C-alpha cells in the first residue's frame, strides 16, 4: 500500500511499473474484504457492500446529511449524481473524467480528498473507478444514512424564528409606565431588583428629542416654552412638532444614507465626482418627509425601475444600487469590476434588510449561519442582470427652457461636427476599434482606444457594438464626444493638430454648457440580453460553477413557487413580507439604536449566530410587530419609542447600576451619546445663527484647509468652494469624496461608504480636539456667536453668560458654573489684552459701541463652550 500512497502524494501520473503494482494491490484489497465476499470475475462492484461504506467512512462527514461543503452531498443518489457547485463529480461510465476520482487521486495542484486523514488506499480508489466505469449503479432501494427525505434540519437560531407578538408583561408599579415598551423594560428590571431612573429634566428632554428627531439643538425659546408649558400633553405636542419639521427628514435620511453607502464620488483612482448622486439623497429626504411606508420605501429602492407605470421619482429611488464604488482605472477588467459591484449590491441588501453577513458566503458556505454558497448566488442573481443607466430627471421648471433651447443647440452641434469631418472619420474609426476588440494585439493605438472606451464611457463597449442607427441619442452623443476627445491616440501629433479636435472638444463642451440645466439621475434597469448566473467557485468571477436561478434562502421564509423566473420585485416583496422573520426586527432594532445609542441587538449589522443576542427579545418582537401593524410607518415607530418612559429617563450614571449593569443592557437609564460628525457641525452653526436651513438639493463644498484634498489623487472637480449661504448648510450636504473626505467627517467617524454601515464608531481622539479648537468653521461660528451675544443680550455680563449657556447647552448654568465662566471670561480677556493684535485677529468685526477686545473674549469663551463634552453629547 505504501507505493500507492506515494503515487497519490506526488500527484503525478504513476509510472507504468507502479500502475501494475496498483492493480495488484487493488485486487489484493478486494480479496481481503472482511465479509468474505469477492467480486465476480467481471470485476463488478457491489454498491452497498463496497462503495457506500467507503463514502460513509471517508466522505460523508463533509459531504453528507449534516454538511454539504462545496454543495456536494454523497449519501443520496440524486444529490451525488447532480454534483457540487463546480458541477457533476460522477460521470457514470467515465471514471477518468469524473472529478470524484481525480480528487481522491490527487490533483496536479496538490489538492486531494479527503483533506484530513490518510489518502484513500489504491484499492479503494480502484473500487471507485470500477464502480463509476460500470455506470455508477446506485440501487433505488438504497437509503441515505438518515434524513432521507428531508432537507437540513430547521435552523433553531432565534432570529430565524417567526416574529410572534408577545403579550406585554404585567408589572407591579404601573405608575412608571409610559407605554407598552415600559412593561417589557420594567418587568426585566423588577426581575433583577433594579429601579429605573427618574425622568430627565425638561430642558434635557427637549434637547435630547430635538437632536434625536431633527439633528438640531433646540433654541432657548423652544426650551423655555416647553418648560413653561403646563399642559399634560406638552411632550406629545413636542414630538408632533419635531416629526413635522423638515429637519426630521434630514436627520433620518442621513441615518438611511449610512446604510445605503451614499457618496458623491466613484472611489478608486479617478474618484470621479458624481454630479447627479444627490438626486438619490434628495429622494430619501422626501421619502422620510412624507413618511413613505417602509415596504414601499423598500420596493422603490430595490426595484423601482420595474414598477408598472413607474414615475421618474420611483426610478430615481433605484439610485440606491448606484452607490457602489466604481473603478474606472484604465486597464481594469470591466467584467471583474462589474462582478464586484454585483457582490457589493448583494451584500448590501443582505446587511441592510436581513442583518446577515451574507458576504461570507461569496467564497464558501457560510461558516456560522445556514446560508449556502448556492443561496448566496441565488441572491446575487437578482442583481446580476442589472445595468447602470443615467436618466433624465428634470426638476420642476426645467423642462420648458430646455425644450425651447434644444433646436438651436442641435443645429449648432451638427454644424460643428460636420465642419470637422466627424461624420466622415468616425465610421472608419469605429470599424478599427471593433477590429481591435475582436483581434487585440494588432494595433497598440486601437487596443488602448478600446480599453479607454470601456473604462471611460458608461456602457461604452455596448454602445460601440450597437449599430449606429439603433443607438439612443444620448449614447450616440457619448460615443461621439469620446471620439473627438480620444481620436488623437491613433493619429500623429501634426495630423491631430491639423484637425483641430482639441478646440472642437472645448467648443462642444461650451455648447453643452450653454443649454439650460436639465436634471439627471443615476438609476438602474435590466439588461436587454439575458445574463445567466452561476455559483462562482471560490468567489472568483473567472470560475463559474453550476448555474443558479434568482431565489432566496427558503429556510428563512419559503414562498410559493411563482412558476416564472423571480425578479427584484419579488425579492422586495419577500423582504417586507409580514412574516419575514428578519426585516422588521432588523429595522426596528436600528431605529432603537438611533434613539438609545445602542440596539437591543448590539450587533445591528449581524443577526446571525455570531451576532449578539437581544437584551430584550420580547420587546424587539413587539416593536417589530408594531412596525408591521402600523403600516411600516417610520414616524409611528419613532413616536412609539420616544413616548416610552424608558426613553425619557435620565442618562446620569448611578452607583448601584455601575456594579449591577455597567453596560446599561437592562435600560435602567438613558445613554449619553457623542454626536455624529455632521451634527457637531450643525450644532455649532445653529447656535451661532449661521446655519442655512434650506432642505435638500445639491452637495456643497465648504472651504477646506490648504492641501487637505490632495491626500488622494482625487477627481473632485477642483473643489470649487461654494459661494454664499451654501457654505453654512448642514453637514449631510457636504460633498463626500471617497478618496479624500472632508476632514471633519473622517475625524469624527463618518463611515467610509464602501459598504453599508450599520452603526458609527464614537471615538475620542486628539485630532478631534484640534479640529474643533482650530478649524476656521468653528471659530467663525464662535465669532458669530459672540456677535449674537453682544447684540441680543444688551443687559450685561450675567445675562450674556446665561444666554451663551442656553444657546450652547440648552440649560441654565448653576451658580458655580456661572462664576467659573465669569472668571474665565476675564482671564481670557486679560490674556488677549496683553498680546497686541490678537484680539483683532480673533474678532475682526467692528460692532457699534463694542470693542474688538470684548468681541474676542466672547469668541474665545464661546469656542470653549462649543468644545465641552456636554456640547458634543446628546444627553
Amino acid at each position, binding site marked *: 500500500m505504501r507505493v500507492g500512497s506515494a503515487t497519490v502524494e506526488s500527484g503525478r501520473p504513476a509510472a507504468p511499473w507502479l500502475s501494475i503494482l496498483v492493480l495488484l494491490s487493488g485486487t489484493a484489497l478486494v480479496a481481503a474484504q472482511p465479509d468474505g465476499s469477492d467480486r465476480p470475475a467481471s470485476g463488478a462492484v457491489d454498491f452497498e457492500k463496497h462503495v457506500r461504506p467507503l463514502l460513509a467512512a471517508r466522505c460523508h462527514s463533509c459531504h453528507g446529511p449534516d454538511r454539504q461543503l462545496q454543495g456536494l452531498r454523497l449519501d443520496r443518489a440524486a444529490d451525488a449524481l447532480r454534483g457540487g457547485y463546480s458541477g457533476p463529480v460522477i460521470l457514470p461510465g467515465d471514471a477518468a473524467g469524473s472529478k470524484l476520482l481525480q480528487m481522491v487521486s490527487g490533483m496536479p495542484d496538490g489538492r486531494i480528498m479527503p483533506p484530513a486523514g490518510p489518502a484513500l488506499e489504491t484499492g479503494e480508489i480502484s473500487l471507485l473507478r470500477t464502480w463509476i466505469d460500470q455506470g455508477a449503479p446506485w440501487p433505488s432501494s438504497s437509503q441515505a444514512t438518515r434524513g432521507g427525505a428531508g432537507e437540513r434540519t430547521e435552523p433553531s437560531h432565534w432570529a430565524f424564528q417567526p416574529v410572534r407578538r408577545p403579550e406585554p408583561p404585567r408589572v407591579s408599579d404601573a405608575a412608571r409606565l409610559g407605554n407598552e415598551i415600559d412593561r417589557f423594560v420594567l418587568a426585566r428590571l423588577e426581575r433583577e431588583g433594579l429601579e429605573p431612573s427618574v425622568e430627565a429634566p425638561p430642558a434635557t428632554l427637549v434637547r435630547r428629542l430635538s437632536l434625536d428627531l431633527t439633528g438640531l439643538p433646540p433654541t432657548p425659546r423652544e426650551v423655555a416654552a416647553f418648560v413653561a408649558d403646563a399642559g399634560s400633553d406638552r411632550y406629545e405636542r413636542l414630538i408632533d412638532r419635531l416629526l413635522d419639521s423638515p429637519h426630521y427628514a434630514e436627520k433620518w435620511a442621513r441615518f438611511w444614507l449610512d446604510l445605503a453607502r451614499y457618496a458623491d464620488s466613484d472611489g478608486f*483612482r479617478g474618484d470621479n465626482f458624481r454630479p447627479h448622486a444627490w438626486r438619490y439623497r434628495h429622494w430619501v429626504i422626501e421619502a422620510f418627509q412624507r413618511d413613505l411606508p417602509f415596504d414601499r420605501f423598500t420596493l422603490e429602492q430595490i426595484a423601482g425601475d420595474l414598477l408598472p407605470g413607474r414615475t421618474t421619482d420611483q426610478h430615481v429611488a433605484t439610485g440606491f444600487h448606484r452607490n457602489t464604488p466604481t473603478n474606472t482605472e484604465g486597464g481594469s477588467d470591466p467584467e471583474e469590476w462589474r462582478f*464586484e459591484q454585483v457582490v457589493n449590491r448583494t451584500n448590501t441588501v443582505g446587511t441592510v434588510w436581513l442583518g446577515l453577513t451574507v458576504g461570507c458566503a461569496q467564497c464558501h458556505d457560510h461558516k456560522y449561519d445556514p446560508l449556502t454558497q448556492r443561496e448566496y448566488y441565488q441572491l446575487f442573481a437578482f442583481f446580476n442582470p442589472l445595468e447602470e443607466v443615467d436618466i433624465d430627471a428634470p426638476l420642476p421648471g426645467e423642462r420648458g427652457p430646455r425644450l425651447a433651447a434644444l433646436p438651436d443647440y442641435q443645429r449648432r452641434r451638427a454644424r460643428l461636427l460636420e465642419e470637422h469631418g466627424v461624420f466622415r472619420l468616425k465610421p472608419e474609426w469605429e470599424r478599427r476599434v471593433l477590429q481591435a476588440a475582436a483581434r487585440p494585439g494588432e494595433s497598440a493605438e486601437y487596443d488602448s482606444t478600446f480599453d479607454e472606451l470601456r473604462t471611460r464611457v458608461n456602457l461604452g463597449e455596448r454602445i460601440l457594438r450597437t449599430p449606429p442607427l439603433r443607438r439612443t441619442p444620448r449614447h450616440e452623443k457619448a460615443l461621439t464626444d469620446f471620439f473627438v476627445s480620444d481620436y488623437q491616440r491613433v493619429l500623429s501629433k501634426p495630423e491631430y493638430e491639423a484637425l483641430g479636435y482639441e478646440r472642437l472638444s472645448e467648443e462642444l463642451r461650451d455648447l453643452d454648457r450653454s443649454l439650460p440645466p436639465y436634471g439627471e439621475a443615476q438609476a438602474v434597469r435590466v439588461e436587454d440580453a439575458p445574463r445567466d448566473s452561476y455559483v462562482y467557485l471560490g468567489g472568483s468571477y473567472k470560475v463559474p460553477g453550476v448555474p443558479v436561478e434568482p431565489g432566496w434562502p427558503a429556510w428563512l421564509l419559503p414562498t410559493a413557487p411563482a412558476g416564472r423566473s423571480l425578479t427584484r420585485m419579488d425579492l422586495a416583496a419577500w423582504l417586507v413580507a409580514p412574516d419575514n422573520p428578519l426585516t422588521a426586527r432588523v429595522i426596528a432594532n436600528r431605529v432603537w439604536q438611533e434613539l438609545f445609542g445602542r440596539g437591543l441587538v448590539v*450587533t445591528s449589522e449581524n443577526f446571525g449566530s455570531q451576532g449578539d443576542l437581544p437584551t430584550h427579545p420580547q420587546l424587539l418582537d413587539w416593536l417589530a410587530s408594531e412596525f408591521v401593524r402600523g403600516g411600516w410607518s417610520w414616524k409611528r415607530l419613532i413616536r412609539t419609542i420616544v413616548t416610552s418612559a424608558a426613553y425619557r429617563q435620565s442618562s446620569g450614571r448611578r452607583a448601584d447600576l455601575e456594579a449591577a449593569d455597567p453596560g446599561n443592557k437592562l435600560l435602567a437609564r438613558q445613554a449619553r451619546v457623542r454626536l455624529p460628525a455632521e451634527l457637531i457641525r450643525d450644532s455649532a452653526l445653529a447656535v451661532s445663527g449661521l446655519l442655512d436651513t434650506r432642505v435638500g438639493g445639491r452637495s456643497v463644498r465648504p472651504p477646506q484647509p490648504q492641501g487637505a484634498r490632495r491626500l488622494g489623487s482625487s477627481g473632485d472637480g477642483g473643489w470649487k468652494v461654494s459661494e454664499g449661504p451654501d457654505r453654512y448648510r448642514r453637514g449631510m450636504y457636504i460633498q463626500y469624496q471617497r478618496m479624500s473626505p472632508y476632514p471633519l467627517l473622517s475625524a469624527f467617524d463618518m463611515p467610509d461608504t*464602501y459598504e453599508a454601515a450599520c452603526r458609527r*464608531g464614537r471615538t475620542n481622539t486628539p485630532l478631534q480636539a484640534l479640529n474643533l479648537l482650530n478649524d476656521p468653521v468653528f471659530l467663525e461660528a464662535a465669532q458669530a456667536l459672540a456677535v449674537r451675544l453682544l447684540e441680543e443680550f444688551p443687559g450685561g455680563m450675567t445675562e450674556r453668560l446665561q444666554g451663551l449657556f442656553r444657546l450652547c447647552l440648552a440649560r441654565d448654568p448653576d451658580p458655580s458654573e456661572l462664576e467659573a465662566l465669569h472668571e474665565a471670561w476675564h482671564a481670557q480677556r486679560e490674556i488677549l489684552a496683553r498680546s497686541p493684535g490678537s484680539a483683532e485677529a480673533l474678532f475682526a468685526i467692528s460692532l457699534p459701541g463694542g470693542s474688538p477686545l470684548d468681541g474676542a473674549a466672547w469668541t474665545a469663551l464661546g469656542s470653549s463652550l462649543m468644545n465641552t463634552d456636554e456640547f458634543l453629547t446628546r444627553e
Partner: protein
Amino acid sequence: MNWTIDDGALLRRRFFASSAGGLGAAALAHLLAGEGRLGASASAGPMAVRAPHFAPKAKRAILLYQSGGPSQLDLFDPKPELAARAGQALPESLARGLKLAFIKPNAKIMPSARAFRRHGASGIEFSDWLPNLGACADDLCLIRTMRTEAFNHDPGALLLTTGVTQFGRPSVGSWVAYGLGSESRDLPGFVVLGSGKGPNAGSNIWSNGFLPAAYQGTRFRSVGDPILYVSNAGGITRPLQRARLDLIRDLNRRRHERTGDAEIAARTASYELAFRMQSSVPGLLDFGGEPRRVLEEYGIGVEPTHAYGTNCLLARRMVERGVRFVMLTHGDWDDHKELDKGHARNCAIVDRPTAALVRDLKRRGLLESTLLIWASEFGRTPMAQADRPDEAPGRDHHPDCFSMWLAGGGVAGGRVVGRTDEIGLQPVEDSVHVHDLQATVLHCLGFDHERLTYRHQGREFRLTDVGGRVVDKLLA
C-alpha cells in the same frame, strides 16, 4: 494574545476599569502628568504599550511605499537576456495566462538601458540609478520574486497595505499600533508622510478600517499645518489656548461629577494630548539641532531631494520619539511611457535620502530595532508599452514577479531572496506573496500573523486575510 475587541468599547472599559471609584481619575492623572513614556504600568488606553506574542526583533517599522510600480528590471533585477530578445514577442508558452493591464500578450520585449554593478561584500547588484542605495547593499535584504494578485493600482496598493484588494480594511500601520500601542506620549502612534503625487488608493492605505479610529494613520502634511489644525488659529496665543483648555477641563469636570460618565474624563485627556502635540510637533520639525552634515546627507535644502529627504529625516526623528509605524509615500512611478525619463527623475529623488536613512539609523543604533520596508504594489513588464510612435516607451504593470527590499530589525542584510527567469517575467525559485511579506513583517515585530486578529461582523479578521506564511529566508 488574541485581541478580540469590538468597536473600542472594551478598550475604553479597560481604560477605566482600574478606577471604578474615581472614574478615570487615575488614568487621567497619568495622561496629564505623563511621567516619561507610557510604560507597561500604564493602566491602558488604546495607545498603551502592549507586548506582542513573542520577543520581537523590531520594535517599530518604516514603510517606504513607492506608489505606482517601479521597474524592477531597471533597478534591482538585471536581465541581459532582454537585450538579446529585444523587439521579440514573448513565446506563446509564456504569454498564456498573463494578466496585463494595457498592453497585449504580443507586446515586444524591451531591454533595460541601465548598467548594473555589484556592491559591498554581498555583491548585490543595483542599477546605476541607485548608487547610494547600492552602498548600503550589505544592510539590505532584496526580494526579487514578490508577487501580488492585482494589476491595477488601487487594488494593488490596498493589498500591499491592508491585505485585501477591496476598500475598508485596516492598514498594516493600524494593525501594528493596535498590537503594540505607542511609545510616544505626545505624538500619534502611526504617522504618514508623503511626497510627490498622492499615493494610490489615497487615504485608504492608512485607514483604521474597522479598528477604532485611534489607530488611524495621522497624515503629516507638506502644505500648511503638518498635522491638520495643529496650529492655533489667528489670535489664539498659546496662553489663550491654555486658558480655553482650562475652562473646558473645568466644565467637563463639573459635568463628570454630575453625570458620572467616564467618557468625559477621556475627552478631557484627548484635549490635553492635543495640547501637548501642539508643542511637540514644532520641535519635531525643527531641524536646527541636526548637524549640517546630516542635512546634506539626506539632501535637504537641495533639489530634487528636499521633500523626500525631509520626510526621511522626519521618519528617523519620529521613531526616535517613539512613533510605532511611519508610512512614507512617494509617487508616482507609473511610467507607461517615457520610463527612462520618469524613473531617472524618481531615482534621483529617492536614492540619496533613502540611503541616508539606512546609514543614519545604523549610526544611532536604531537600525537593529527598526524594520525598513521599501515596496510598491507591483512591478513592470519585460515588454514595452509603446502606444504612440512619437513617444518613448514605458513598461506595463506586472503583478507576477517584482522586487522590493527590507532592512533592519530581524531581517538578513546582504541577502538576495528569490530567483527569476531569464527575462524577469516569472519567479523560478522562492516566490513571495504579499501576504507572506506581511506575515514576515508582523513576525519581525513579534506577532503570529494568524493571531493578531480583530472581531468584526461576526468573524475574526487579520492583516493577511486567509493566507500568508513567514518567509524564513528573509530573517537574520
